[in-house]
């Protein structure tokens, strides 16, 4: 089905090739997982298979790629598109229309299928992928997990023999990952050839026919699925891979909190001491209440995970404590009431889409922005850059860095900001094992310096490593099953649903 032979690929403007000496054959009907550290070329390898390289991305390509018997370089993108279905990392960014039905029809319409046929296919896809419950909602209002379901269905609607997934679970909750696994299983049983680039490996157990570890743009090692299942953690670490089994979540201590939005069985007695105190907190969007906390304490010096299904108000709570969101009720820091404008000056956030918060023209300037200068700062930023593997890039423009490097840069800036409230919003999406550790280390350092550290994440591995306390939220319309993803019904962190 796929033959990649001696491929060397350099993105336009890059000094070093991203792929170098890549050989990879995928048989028809096979499910292959591509893994490896950040920057090893996983996503680039997928682009090779759907023709985005060399037809969409610019650069220099040597070697040969054949997909379903077609030479990729000599075949127009639309012809390749009929044979491949691709799901990108952020489903919401790839939707072209605003409803499930039109999104599923999009490829079929463009490929000129007869209307009657399109309607049948769309109806069948809604059925197969279990989308009937949200056909009447706007795509941007769906939860991350639901958007992922629609994106999978839309990629498969024209029944391509080859399906490609780029880090499909990076923003999914455990329940959503289970649904996604079921989708994969169904597609695989139907005979599709599947290639998945992924960091999180535990959900793929029993699904992968072959696991390919990449490093420096080529295949570093590969195992048949059964053999991979017997590897120990040591062997995985040596290849820079994440754990194969889901980490055991020992339930961390619940934070002191009560109110309609709080989903704790028991809550410790009222604490005292430094940190954030919330009183009679209420927040509504367009008349619909999304968060109600009677009282809560988020202590300084501790990493508190804010968990709960999508739509429970995690992001809203983070926006409130950092002063970005209007609300009713009171927020106190170290016992003193603080107005939103003051909280803005006490807060830092590592956002999901970090490009939105890189403002300057060099890595070093980015770290200095908004921080009082001093010899100590120089010293600290140097160590920090070394810890995060950013040392060689001090003079580089932040936008010329890779996604993972940009994310670590924003983490470093948050570390140096000296702010008392620091929020990490899904900081581990697309992060490999080593950097997962270094980011966790920075969160601990921040806490040790007396900051209130809040972590919003669906990543069990990160939560298991980092969490010291948990504030579990639940959606306010209580008749729904709390295990199911809920619609966000409002524009996410900053305008767009996530």
């Amino acid at each position: 089905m796929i033959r990649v032979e001696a491929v060397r690929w350099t993105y336009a403007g890059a000094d070093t090739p991203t792929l170098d000496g890549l050989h990879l054959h995928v048989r028809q009907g096979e499910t292959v997982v591509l893994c490896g550290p950040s920057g090893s070329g996983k996503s680039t390898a997928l682009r090779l298979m759907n023709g985005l390289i060399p037809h969409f991305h610019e650069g220099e390509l040597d070697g040969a790629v054949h997909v379903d018997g077609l030479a990729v370089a000599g075949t127009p993108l639309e012809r390749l598109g009929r044979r491949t279905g691709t799901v990108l990392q952020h489903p919401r960014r790839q939707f072209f229309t605003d409803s499930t039905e039109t999104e599923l029809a999009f490829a079929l319409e463009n490929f000129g299928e007869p209307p009657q046929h399109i309607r049948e296919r769309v109806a069948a896809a809604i059925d197969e992928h279990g989308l009937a419950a949200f056909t009447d909602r706007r795509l941007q209002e769906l939860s991350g997990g639901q958007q992922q379901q629609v994106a999978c269905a839309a990629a498969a609607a024209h029944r391509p023999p080859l399906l490609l997934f780029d880090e499909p679970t990076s923003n999914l909750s455990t329940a959503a990952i289970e649904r996604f696994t079921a989708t994969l299983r169904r597609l695989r049983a139907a005979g599709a050839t599947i290639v998945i680039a992924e960091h999180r490996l535990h959900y793929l157990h029993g699904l992968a026919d072959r696991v390919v570890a990449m490093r420096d743009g080529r295949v570093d090692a590969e195992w048949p699925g059964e053999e991979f299942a017997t590897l120990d953690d040591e062997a995985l670490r040596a290849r820079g891979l994440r754990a194969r089994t889901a980490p055991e979540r020992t339930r961390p201590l619940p934070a002191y909190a009560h109110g309609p939005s709080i989903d704790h069985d028991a809550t410790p007695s009222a604490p005292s001491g430094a940190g954030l105190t919330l009183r009679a907190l209420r927040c509504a969007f367009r008349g619909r209440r999304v968060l109600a906390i009677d009282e809560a304490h988020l202590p300084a010096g501790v990493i508190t995970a804010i968990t709960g299904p999508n739509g429970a108000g995690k992001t809203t709570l983070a926006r409130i404590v950092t002063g970005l969101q209007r609300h009713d009720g009171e927020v106190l820091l170290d016992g003193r009431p603080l107005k939103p404008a003051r909280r803005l000056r006490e807060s830092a956030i590592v956002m999901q889409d970090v490009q939105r918060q890189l403002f300057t023209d060099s890595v070093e300037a980015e770290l200095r922005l908004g921080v009082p200068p001093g010899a100590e700062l120089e010293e600290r930023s140097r160590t920090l850059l070394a810890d995060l593997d950013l040392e060689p890039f001090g003079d580089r423009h932040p936008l010329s860095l890779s996604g993972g490097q940009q994310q670590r840069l924003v983490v470093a800036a948050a570390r140096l900001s000296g702010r008392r409230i620091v929020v990490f919003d899904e900081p581990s999406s697309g992060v490999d094992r080593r950097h997962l550790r270094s980011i966790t280390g920075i969160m601990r350092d921040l806490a040790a310096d007396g900051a209130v550290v809040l972590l919003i994440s669906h990543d069990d591995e990160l939560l298991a490593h980092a969490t010291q306390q948990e504030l579990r939220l639940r959606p306010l319309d209580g008749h729904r099953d709390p295990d199911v993803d809920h619609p966000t019904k409002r524009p996410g962190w900053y305008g767009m649903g996530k």
Partner: protein
Amino acid sequence: MSLTLGTGSVESAPPTAVRTRRTVRLDPRTKILLVLSSSFVVMAPGGQPFVPAAVVLGVLLALTERAWARALGLPLAASGVAAVAYLLPVALPHPAVGIVAVAAAFALRFVAVGGVALHLVHTTRPTELTAALRAARVPRAITVSGAVMLRFLPAIVAEARAVRDAMRLRGIGGWSGLLRHPLRSIEHFAVPLIASTLRVAEDLSASALLRGLGAATRPTTMRPPRFGAADAAAVLVVAVLAAVTLLSGAVR
């Protein structure tokens, strides 16, 4: 080569019953025609007498989509603006008031046409609009780029909001900063905005191209637009409104 998922469910699957709301739906081409014709008549020199007819049309359209607030608000807004334009100068004869009244008379035409245009915006999905334009034989270069624009504009707005939030957190977003270092403030806003919208645009266009947008094949439509009874009724209503306006002797 193609895949078959499920077992023959394609034939047995019921037709999608997605549109459950019972509202009168006009063909998108009719809606475009209504907007074009009402703006042409109302905005033309001497178009003032057609303002009441356009407002009535806007209210009727709002009623068909059950937009009660607009059905009520549109005539209120129009009469408010009309009062400023025609009654205020009589009650308060003053040159400044005169200027305001002239501006209001001009704004009145926009209110009237706006009611009709809002109906188009609120009831037409981008894909429907593209399909309708395609059916009306509008060249593909226009329909494809129009569809991309419609999809992309809200994304830019969302990114801009996010960047503004990030700036507020970094303490570089305030008015004081803008006044003291205007150029640097603009840079701090524009650079991340361009970077993040470019990324969104890249994902969007990659996904759209892979799914055949702009392919050489002539695209089809899941639900080809069709003129129906509602469209005939709309034409009739417009004819009656125009006739009443003309016969009332308001147009000389």
